[in-house]
């Protein structure tokens, strides 16, 4: 039980990250760390650059300067598809499930990283009545109580369900760092609670979370720390209760504390 005070290793480390679009600084010399097994929220007003950070960590945008390390491995210049092997997976603000595939098929694509050999790729698994891959995906669905949707086409499902399936898919790659872009956005209270349960279960399994979220109650109940961005710069960092008192934060992010 001394582990608690002992140093946790750093799962995600961002150092001196900068990015400009058409001459406008979107992210300016940003540094922060997410310790292993912890949950950190990236918060700030719209347009502060939160999603840009996600896009750089997952390799969708190249960085201008700075470094990104996942589990001690420098991934700054890795192609996106290799970053998931380094241990970082993400979800999307606008859910990006593949519309022409069923829920189960979407999850099977999510398993790719752990079944990437040529032999796995050419196995006619659909002919096997209850193939390990299918069982595993169904199991993951069942853990979130979504198994009833397995055969459905993703398009027809309610928004909240799709959102949670997106999360399940992100977990199936076996990455230990999950980046979730507004996971609770658009969910009703029941769904938000279910999501909170999902995330706490993930944390219990030792996963590390980086979350962009507007709902401060949700942030408060899931994340130990927050990093506040404004105009691409980090203006505060620490537990939410402390950060709320910060003058800069109140100016930049008016309205957050009023909702409470």
């Amino acid at each position, binding site marked *: 039980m001394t582990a608690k005070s002992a140093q946790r290793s750093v799962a995600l480390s961002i150092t001196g990250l900068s990015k400009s679009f058409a001459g406008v600084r979107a992210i300016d010399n940003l540094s922060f760390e997410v310790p292993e097994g912890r949950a950190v929220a990236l918060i700030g007003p719209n347009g502060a650059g939160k999603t840009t950070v996600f896009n750089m960590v997952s390799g969708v945008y190249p960085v201008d300067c700075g470094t990104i390390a996942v589990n001690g491995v420098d991934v700054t210049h890795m192609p996106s598809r290799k970053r998931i092997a380094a241990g970082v997976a993400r979800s999307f603000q*606008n859910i990006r499930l593949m519309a022409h595939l069923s829920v189960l098929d979407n999850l099977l694509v999510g398993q790719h990283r752990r079944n990437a050999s040529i032999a796995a790729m050419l196995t006619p698994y659909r002919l096997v009545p209850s193939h390990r891959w299918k069982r595993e995906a169904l199991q993951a669905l069942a853990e979130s109580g979504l198994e009833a949707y397995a055969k459905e086409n993703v398009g027809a499902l309610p928004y909240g369900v799709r959102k949670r399936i997106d999360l399940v898919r992100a977990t199936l790659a076996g990455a230990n760092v999950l980046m979730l872009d507004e996971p609770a956005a658009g969910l009703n209270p029941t769904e938000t609670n279910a999501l909170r349960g999902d995330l706490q279960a993930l944390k219990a399994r030792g996963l590390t979370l980086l979350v962009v979220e507007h709902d401060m109650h949700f942030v408060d109940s899931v994340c130990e720390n927050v990093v506040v961005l404004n105009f691409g710069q980090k203006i505060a960092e620490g537990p939410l209760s402390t950060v709320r008192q910060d003058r800069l934060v109140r100016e930049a992010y008016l309205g957050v504390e009023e909702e409470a």
Partner: protein
Amino acid sequence: MSATEGAAFIELENVYVERAGVRVLDNVSLTLRAGDRLAVVGANGAGKTTLLRTITGLQKATSGTVRAFGRVRRTQEDFREVRIRAAYLFQDADDQLFCPTVLEDVAFGPLNMGLNEQAALEKANATLAFLGMEHLGERITRRLSGGEKRLVCLAGVLAMEPDVLLLDEPTNSLDAKHVEKLMTVLSSLDKSMIIVSHDRPILDRLATRAVRMKDCRLEPAVLHRHPHVHEHLHVHVGEDHA
């Protein structure tokens, strides 16, 4: 129960929208009357932008009725008039600006309404003057700052003399100075508005009532005054009102 008087400019009745098999608006009904300034709040992806796109006919309703300015609108031809009378201010200013100079950009809408070149330019100049931006007329659009671009876009839609403004995150990524300027202008305008925004203070200052988009559905949100030390309007979106 605000604004029951006044003509209904825009009415949606049981509108459903599906895109690529995905339901993006779910049984949405809404009325916007003269003088209404309706705030639409809700999380990203809840369908707020789709709502504006459906009103302007950029997105076709799968079922339900879109009525605007007294007529049911179905075809692209029907929506042409709607788009002029209910002007849409883009989220991304660069999507709206493409002419070499500011003046030409602002004159583009009036030209499409059938004004001749001379009249359109006059209209553009007058609109820029109204916004106190006549000095920008000959500037190259691409070289403006983000805030200036947003205001030029606003000039572009105001020049069409719309009855309704559809504002999609109007203050997104603007600095404080331009937010202030934009707010002053918008609150001085005698026009109906639908304002999609995350920005509480903005909604507090502008909106007369509010709805919330959640899970592609509309639900009422109550707007009322609180005895804050700094008294202002603000939008309540608590679950208890659902």
